[in-house]
């Protein structure tokens, strides 16, 4: 009896604590619904398009942060996962529009423009790609891991550049409307809500994973693998699984990106894009699940605004990144702590 009374409050507080973890994600999702409502009432389709893109890159940033922030793996190949997922959609939609089957060896596949089939297919294709590349890159760590993932990114990039049948360097247009079962996703607001649902599911999944025993081991592995093996845990399989989960979520986001922009090209999977993804994550905050979503929003938003002001927007952008990284060590998720920091300085000046 005494035991029960001791455990119950703890379990209660734990439930409360884990419920609290979803609060930032919930706030962001509600805000994104609000943005759609506003854009629709104002008839602003541009705003819908911008935020659809932000959400897609938000999914990627959250997925990348799972390995980068929590697992300590600096991957420079996440753009290639976007590309693989994107090309799955574009290629099958292309075959669907031309009514010619896709031949792989002796097998013939009919094309499709239904995401209910294409999204699972994107997963089926990304999982082995991520598993194979992960297995090889995770033999190394630190700088070497960064270099190997970069090399894999370039290999995937040039693979699609060389794929002349599907546009090569020019990319591949999606001409027929993409659906999800009965949903017409060429409808901007429908696609917005669809993307938002995928984003919300991603946030829930990653939050649960980070808190699970799997996530605890992953975070421990980021800290010290030797220490982990001394208590009977081999870190490699944990890191590999995390890498595959992250790559697969990114592949799904790639499928959404191709759907949204009705186009995919090797430019969407260049190594510099991989670098931009890392910047989004770092800007948003490595320690939090939903921080990178904010990072993606700020990155893409700033890019859009600065681009409209000057051709040399990269310069201003660079200065902003320097300021953010020096002032907000924990990323934008740390913005709250900046205010008391300012306050302390002001009161210090008075004294």
């Amino acid at each position: 009896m005494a035991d029960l009374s001791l455990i119950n409050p703890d379990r209660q507080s734990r439930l409360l604590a884990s419920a609290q973890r979803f609060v930032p994600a919930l706030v962001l999702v509600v805000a994104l619904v609000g943005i759609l409502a506003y854009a629709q009432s104002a008839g602003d389709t541009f705003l819908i398009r911008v935020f659809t893109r932000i959400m897609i890159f938000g999914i990627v940033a959250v997925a990348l942060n799972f390995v980068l922030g929590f697992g300590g793996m600096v991957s420079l190949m996440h753009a290639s996962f976007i590309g693989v997922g994107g090309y799955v959609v574009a290629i099958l939609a292309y075959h669907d529009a031309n009514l010619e089957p896709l031949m792989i060896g002796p097998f013939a596949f009919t094309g499709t423009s239904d995401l209910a089939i294409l999204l699972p297919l994107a997963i089926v294709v990304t999982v082995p790609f991520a598993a194979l590349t992960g297995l090889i890159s995770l033999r190394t760590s630190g700088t070497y891991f960064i270099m190997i993932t970069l090399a894999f990114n370039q290999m995937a990039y040039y693979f699609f550049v060389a794929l002349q049948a599907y546009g090569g360097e020019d990319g591949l247009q999606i001409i027929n409307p993409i659906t999800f079962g009965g949903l017409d996703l060429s409808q901007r607001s429908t696609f917005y809500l669809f993307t938002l649902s995928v984003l919300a599911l991603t946030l829930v999944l990653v939050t649960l994973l980070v808190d699970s025993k799997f996530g605890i081991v992953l975070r421990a592995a980021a800290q010290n693998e030797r220490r982990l093996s001394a208590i009977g845990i081999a870190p490699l399989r944990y890191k590999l699984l995390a890498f595959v989960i992250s790559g697969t979520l990114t592949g799904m986001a790639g499928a959404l990106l191709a759907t949204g922009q009705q186009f995919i090209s090797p430019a969407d999977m260049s190594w510099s894009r991989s670098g931009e993804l890392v910047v989004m994550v770092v800007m948003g905050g490595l320690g939090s699940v939903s921080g990178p979503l904010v990072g993606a929003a700020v990155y893409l938003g700033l890019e859009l605004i600065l681009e409209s002001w000057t051709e040399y927007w990269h310069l201003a952008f660079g200065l902003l990144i320097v300021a953010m990284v020096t002032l907000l060590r924990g990323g934008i998720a740390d913005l709250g702590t900046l205010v008391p920091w300012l306050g302390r300085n002001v009161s210090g000046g008075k004294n």
Partner: protein
Amino acid sequence: MLEVENVEASYGSSQVLFGMSFHVNPGEVVTLMGRNGMGKTTTISSVMGLLKLKAGTVRLNGEVVSGLPPHRIARLGVGIVPEGRRIFPNLTVRENLLMAAANHRKVREPWTLNRVIDFFPRLGERLHNGGNQLSGGEQQMLAIGRALMTNPQLLVLDEAMEGLAPIVRDEIWARLHELKKTGLTLILVDKEVESLAGFADRHYIVEKGEVVWEGDTPRLLSDEESRMRYLSV
């Protein structure tokens, strides 16, 4: 239970262990004593598989374990509380403990989170604190608790009392006495003869990478000359 035979090991080109040999019987408490830099911690790393051996063998219950990766050796029931405690600072106390939870040898009454908290009530009060927010004593309790969560048959403590306040030391000694009573086999690596002598059954003195003296507690206490020669600073 544990037999270490003629183990040689080195860090890069500098050899540290030159034919290290000792054994531990089931249920025994054995110490490895010696001054700093004599190879005590290196011996522990070699037993755990964290360091490749140049020569020699390590046996656990008669089976050769040298050459196995560290996580396999840990799963066979060797728990370690490393020097400097080495908990995970970015995880909470609860996460540090839960992560290690395993019962690979199917022990009948395994250590669980609740049992560790009963054993170290201070950890129960700090469950949701980060590992980096703990005092040295609490960190040491956490490191011991984490090792217990793996349900070891042999627990190795490397400089367990280093840098702890006397009152905290007493508390941890009391806990170690209880662990000894459960029949857990223990290896203690340390420098202080006084506190170890009353606790351990047998002692090995390590000097320049090999055992130079061995004996039980009464012999250690009576052999003042060896103590002066190998242990006094």
